[in-house]
């Protein structure tokens, strides 16, 4: 089953790279003309097209591009002629830091809250946790980001309202510049995770096995930790896989809002400048990351749930 999953990943990766590659070839306008700008003449356009390889058949261009990507060479940016790989190297750590912190925040907050809500089902704790979870799911991340800026940055001056401080300039300052954006990004995942945790725990806690264990005298905390959480983790991990997509998409907006020079902001800039080679590269990276995460969660899923190792899923 693991092998099946791995095998499926390849065509998906291939399919998405075809879609991403087609972006550049399907857009209106001639890349050669836009590079040359007001210096465009018939001959120079032909020359530039040849230099860019645009006169080759489509599948050859795709092969060349894919080959380059496999070597880690994403080509050159049309406008500044800078190597795209360099730009990616600069910006990727920032997005990874942002998404990573957001992810951790969501996990650290959501799982305990979900557990508590399940254990205290029906009580006011449960109801308030559920209400807060719904609110977090419903608030678009940049709305919270904006309101957060108003409250925490402008009002209370706890964190900077925008801008990114790299680790070299101070670990604390680095975290401070990421705190609010990561918090905003973590909300959606946090809300969903809370609810999934709660419901999965409820399912497990209501099962025969648990009733039996309780009757046999196992302490409540050992039941929760050693059995319930482990079994509840399956749906939790499935959901994480799906929600990572929202975090990745969310970095685009959050980086724009907070002025963080990461991949998300690069996508927006590339879009606005019609800088398609850069756009292609960024989207490919994001999609590959997403596929990778889903692969990992699927693998974790089978590891945690041995019963599934031999059955096939659709």
């Amino acid at each position, binding site marked *: 089953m693991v092998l099946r999953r791995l095998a499926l990943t390849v065509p998906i990766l291939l399919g998405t790279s075809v*879609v991403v590659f087609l972006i550049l070839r399907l857009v209106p306008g001639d890349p050669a003309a836009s590079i040359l700008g007001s210096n465009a003449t018939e001959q120079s356009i032909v020359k530039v097209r040849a230099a860019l390889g645009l006169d080759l058949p489509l599948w050859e261009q795709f092969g060349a591009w894919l080959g380059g990507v496999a070597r880690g060479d994403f080509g050159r940016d049309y406008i500044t002629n800078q190597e795209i790989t360099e730009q990616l190297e600069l910006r990727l750590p920032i997005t990874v830091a942002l998404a990573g912190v957001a992810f951790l925040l969501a996990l650290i907050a959501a799982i305990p809250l979900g557990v508590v809500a399940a254990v205290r089902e*029906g009580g006011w704790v449960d109801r308030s946790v559920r209400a807060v979870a719904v609110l977090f799911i*419903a608030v678009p991340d940049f709305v919270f980001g904006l309101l957060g800026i108003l409250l925490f940055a*402008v009002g209370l001056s706890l964190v900077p309202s925008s801008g990114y401080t790299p680790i070299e300039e101070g670990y604390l300052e680095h975290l401070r510049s990421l705190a609010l954006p990561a918090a905003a990004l973590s909300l959606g995942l946090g809300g969903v995770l809370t609810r999934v945790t709660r419901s999965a725990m409820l399912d497990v806690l209501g099962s025969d096995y648990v009733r039996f264990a309780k009757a046999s005298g196992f302490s409540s905390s050992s039941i929760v930790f050693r059995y319930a959480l482990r079994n509840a983790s399956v749906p939790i991990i499935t959901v994480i896989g799906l929600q990572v997509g929202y975090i990745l*998409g969310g970095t685009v907006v959050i980086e*724009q809002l907070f002025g963080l020079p990461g991949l998300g902001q690069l996508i927006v800039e590339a879009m606005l400048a019609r800088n398609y080679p850069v756009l292609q590269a960024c989207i490919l990276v994001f999609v590959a990351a997403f596929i990778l995460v889903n692969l990992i969660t699927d693998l974790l899923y089978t590891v945690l749930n041995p019963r599934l190792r031999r059955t096939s899923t659709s």
Partner: protein
Amino acid sequence: MTAQDGASPDQTLKTGGSRLRNRATLSSRIEIVAGGFLVAGAVIVAIVVPMIDPAASTAVGAAPALLSPGFPNLLGTDQLGRDQLARVAAGYGISLTIASGAVLISLVIGGLLGLLAATSKSSIDGLIMRTLDVVMAFPALLFAIVVVAIFGSGSEVLMLAIGIVFVPVITRVTRAAALETARQSYVEAATARGARRSRVILRHIAPNSVGPVLVQASILFAVGIMLEASLSFVGLGVPPPTPSLGLMLSTARNFIVSDPWIAIVPAIAILLLVLGFTLIGDGLQAWLDPKKRTTAR
């Protein structure tokens, strides 16, 4: 309502008996009503306010710029002196229109694909599902960006972009519902009598699918509104001066220190609308299938 409706002793234990069962349905009713109230409110605002003064949302300089909420501009004015209430109403109109269009597109395409997948042989089914896997490999916002990159921005393109993002979900739901229907005994009976399998499924699928599709649709409305707002926020959505809530938030950023209201108004506006649809979706989910208390986005 005690254990007579087929609930197993386990379920009764888990839900704590009839009292909790009642409360579950009651709270889901509250959610649906509250959500419906918010959505209806937004729709009313979107329809009524422009009727009072159609040009207010783009009337530059009609009032002093950057006013806080008060009279006569109930929600204040923006940096070009336009009435915020009018702009929010117009923004609601845009969000609702684009979201509706997207959901419609996804229902039509997704529904057809789902039925096709369920009633065809497994190779076609596999092909459809694998293609959708490729679509699902893109985080939603990024896929929308790709579509906008190719086709340019504008309301119709946004509807298409967001609609396509939703197709895999609807396809899965419809397919699952169709397969569920197929398992029913009356389908076996009908095919035994000579009727075509696919026809029978189509005829009887409705009751099985309405519930899940409705739930997904309300969630998709919420997500669609958020996607449209996100795209407008980064400058890839509906072009100015058409007010989109995301665009209003984006321009408000520069003023956030001196005139926070210009940001608070659209922020709360989006929040309420998305919350409304989320509550409806949640409530529907809990009502129709109380065992599953989660809604995955």
